[in-house]
């Protein structure tokens, strides 16, 4: 596994010690999960969900919503009802 690339995809900035430790551990874990290759699954349908649900609809009945402010109050940085983030461009 290219640990640096995977960490980048996952937006994780790993320390050098973590990269080294995870590389070794991932090697062991991936070797273990590769035991699935002992099984022939050519004609087996994948299961994403045990209940086999497709679209689930409900009646369009209005309920009491959260106030706009309630979720924003949980943000680590917000002002005037908006999220604040570091400069993007």
């Amino acid at each position, binding site marked *: *596994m290219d*640990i640096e690339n*995977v*960490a980048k*995809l*996952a*937006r*994780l*900035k*790993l*320390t050098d010690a*973590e990269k080294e430790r*995870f590389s070794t*551990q*991932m090697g*062991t*874990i*991936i070797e*273990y*999960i*590769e*035991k*699935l*290759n*002992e*099984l022939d*699954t050519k004609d*087996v*349908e*994948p*299961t*994403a*969900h*045990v*209940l086999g*649900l497709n679209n*689930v609809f*409900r009646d369009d009945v209005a309920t009491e919503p*959260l106030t706009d402010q*309630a*979720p924003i*109050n*949980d*943000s*680590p*940085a917000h002002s005037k009802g908006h*999220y604040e*983030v*570091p*400069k*993007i461009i």
Partner: protein
Amino acid sequence: MHRTTITQARELLHSKKLSSVQLTEAVFARIDAVEDKVKAFAHLMREKAMEQAKVADSRIAKGEELPLLGVPIALKDLICTKGSRTTCASKILDQFVAPYNATVVNRLNAAGAVIVGKTNMDEFAMGSSNENSSHHTTMNPWALDRVPGGSSGGSAAAVAAHECIAALGSDTGGSIRQPAGFCGVTGLKPTYGRVSRFGLVAFASSLDQIGPITKSVADAATLLNVIGGKDGQDSTSADVPLPDFTKALQQDVKGMKLGIPKEYFTGGMQPEVEKAVQEGIRTLESLGMQTVEVSLPHLDYAVAAYYIIACAEASTNLSRYDGVKYGYRSPNSDNLINMYENTREEGFGEEVKRRIILGTFVLSSGYYDAYYLKGQQVRTLIKQDFENALEKCDVIAAPVTPYPAFKLGEKLDDPLQMYLADIYTISANLAGIPAMSIPCGFVSGENLPVGLQLMGKHFDEANLIAVGHKFQQATSFHTQQLPI
């Protein structure tokens, strides 16, 4: 008083022999006495609980009858409670206060429960020992140098140590049943879809399920009656009838077929654990159940399929922790990408990062078919195994774990060994079936509980409850007293 079950507490409360304030005070006195040793809680909700107890007493005085009126209950700290912290035992959510209640919390409130606090867990429910918590490690009340199991280890330890009357946990890959087994209490993972996941912080959405951890099967039935049923807020909560599970407590088990899956009994268990499980099965035979051998041929592949699927789903679910919307944000960043990366590096613990890495890898371009798709196909095989086996029997009996509670630190440096602690419990999550752990013995000399696992057909918790209750009427493992 703190040692009562829900059933006993209700009798005492409604016959006015005890008030909810007295019972809740007794529970907090017990917490004050043993919590230093057990550390089952992430944080307590003492003031709110006392207020709820007072309200419950006035409702009891008016003659109101509700299933949990005045009964002190604890919640695993990934179940959202409006106005109180929900930390997931993670630095990244340490100060998070949900703006709404989980559906199960609304249902507990409607049933009159007193919420005493939020229990410790492995961070984001990832772990089998409670050692992956940002707060502290919880100890097994039966042996303080051993783990309580995980990830609902705090809930199981709190129930075992009588720091609450009952608790809720969540089970993604054994996280209710394994700690219940290690702590000598009853733990029920309902069928996937039986209980609403709205307000349960997501780990692996196709596997997660909330369930009761209690001192008896009868109490699990009472709690499932309260928390179960369709919820418009969770589209995966199943639109199926919710029976009165306490009726199953009257059901006879004579003539019912008990399936014994041969793959679970191939020498993987410690001998004393196997002995207790086999004796448990003989007890069920003596109650009139008829044993039949069944086969679950893909058992050996369950852990591998599980870690692919669970980590893939986790890596997606945990992408929401970006330092913008809630929780922790790293102060050491000068641009947005930096801020994401630093926040996640500083906010997540090691096991969570490991699973995000594994999940991101199995979903990444070029590896998706080889790992993720393969895992989902093997999941189909495991699900079919259970469908076939449960055509030949009503309930399957198996061990919960290969060994009793292990020592603190014993498996911390070897993630794969830690994952294998869940080898007997994980397949029920992949198949989505209900499964329950009940105490069936002790490892002699060390006084460590052993669990017996019962598994059933989709939405057939009633038969698990019937069999488990008859077992507890015939045995006393679930009422053994702790050394503390």
